């Protein structure tokens, strides 16, 4: 069976972004970019399913700027067989991305689409669910365990109260949580091999979808900074401060 893995190019998770002085956004000039960590987990899961013999082909896809080729190459170095870049310089948003992904699903007909649960730039946590709605597929979001068998997929989900297991008909959408797996590193030979794997480039027009943003950013501000606190010298001092100064206990 074929798996589609949508991946997003985002700022590296170690970077503490700064808001631009003119409040139009965050400063991404000269900042390290990487594959969204949840997407790495999605790729890893697809690769593990292939190693188990459940999956025969992994197609990575990204909607974004030309530079997102780097992340698609990384996905192929990690084990994706080929990839598709829907090139756009638009500020892409979940609904538009989900529509583009639906067009690709219609062409590729995967049995499983594995996405990250959330992109760590916009923190939206929407795309997988929207894609599932548009394609009429069931969804297993925030997955910490995925088990494909007998034309169904069983997904254990991380929910606020603990864990929930659901069973979904295939084709289905799964979104990954952090504990689903620990992604491997790409080996040098695999990075070299990935350079020769096919990478198709398309446009939104090719897919017949409209990526125009529905939500506009009016301004972006830095969050309120916390006042620097003090270092207390002892547990006694801490108790005294909490009781008499902060009055929280």
């Amino acid at each position, binding site marked *: 069976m074929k798996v589609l893995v949508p991946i997003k190019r985002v700022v590296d998770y170690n970077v503490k972004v*700064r808001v631009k002085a003119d409040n139009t956004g965050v400063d991404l000039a000269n900042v390290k970019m990487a594959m969204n960590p949840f997407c790495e987990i999605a790729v890893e899961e697809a690769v593990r399913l292939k190693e188990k013999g459940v999956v025969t082909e992994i197609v990575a896809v990204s909607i974004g700027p030309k530079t997102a080729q780097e992340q698609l190459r990384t996905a192929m170095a990690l084990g994706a067989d080929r990839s598709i870049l829907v090139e756009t310089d638009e500020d892409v948003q979940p609904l538009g991305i989900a529509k583009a992904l639906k067009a690709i699903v219609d062409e590729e007909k995967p049995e499983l689409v594995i996405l990250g649960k959330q992109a760590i730039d916009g923190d939206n946590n*929407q795309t997988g669910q929207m894609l599932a709605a548009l394609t009429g597929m069931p*969804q297993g979001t925030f997955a910490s365990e995925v088990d494909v068998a007998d034309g169904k997929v069983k997904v254990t989900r991380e929910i606020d109260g603990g864990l929930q*297991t659901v069973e979904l008909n295939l084709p289905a959408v799964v979104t990954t949580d*952090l504990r689903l797996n620990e992604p491997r590193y790409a080996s040098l030979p695999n990075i070299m091999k990935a350079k020769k794997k096919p990478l198709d480039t398309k446009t939104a027009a090719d897919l017949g979808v409209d990526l125009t943003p529905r939500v506009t950013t*009016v301004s972006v501000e830095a*969050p309120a900074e*916390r006042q620097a*606190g003090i*270092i207390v010298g002892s547990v006694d001092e801490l108790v005294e401060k909490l009781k008499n100064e902060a009055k929280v206990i």
Partner: protein
Amino acid sequence: MSVLVYAEHDNAALNKVTLSVVAAAKEIGGDITVLVAGKGCGAVAEEAAKIDGVSKVLCADNDAYEHQLAENIGDLVAEVGADYSHILAAATTTGKNFAPRAAALLDVAQISEISDVVDSDTFKRPIYAGNAIATVKCGDAKKVITVRGTSFDGVAAEGGSASVESLDVVKDAGISSFVGEELAKSDRPELTSAEIVISGGRGMGNGENFEILYKLADKLGAGVGASRAAVDAGFVPNDMQVGQTGKIVAPNLYVAVGISGAIQHLAGMKDSKVIVAINKDEEAPIFQVADYGLVADLFDAVPELDGKL
């Protein structure tokens, strides 16, 4: 304007976060209707009818809604929501699961985890793990929104007297089914609504050592949380994770024990009123956000603190 608020509950009782969602709805303005979908959820609907400011409660009581499966709830909300200008749900794992689905069915954007209402189509929301706050304006005719509970003070649970209407719309997509669940059982206050939260990190060393935190928490009536490193290491279950991709908490007092203070952790707790950090490394970034820092070995400091309270 008319706002549909999706009630969060376990079929028996309303989750308090719904009161915060109603508070956000009030800021948007217009009539507020609460949708209660579940199985055997009549008592929840009665409870919702008493919420201050609610004018109507719709109760969809059916087997198909028992486990809040997103396929069924998404369809239901998209259909019922057609009559409203705004659809609001809590930014919980339930809300995050079905709201984008409903929005896509309605062909509108979804706005995640708002922390402020500017006007009826403009909202604030944290992005980049809370390192920036975006003000966003949605041009769509209908707004589907999830609300960060800790950013809105809940309205009063009593005082209203809305009518309860039962809804016989049955949406059963038949493509997914509930298999089972393992819910954490605890007598301690729920993390997102606790007045005091004590969290442990990798520095705790193992799961047994969390006992010293539980003991202290019980003395203070606190909830207990954890960093992702502590969850990953298997010290504690996932529902205790605080952070960008875990739970968002904003208690009066947050005590971080053996937690370094990675940005992803700070994203989940830096709106707490008072932050205390106990860490043996004086360079730990957590001290940059702590009101009171104690540089000490937690295995000495926590029992001592417990003894002195």
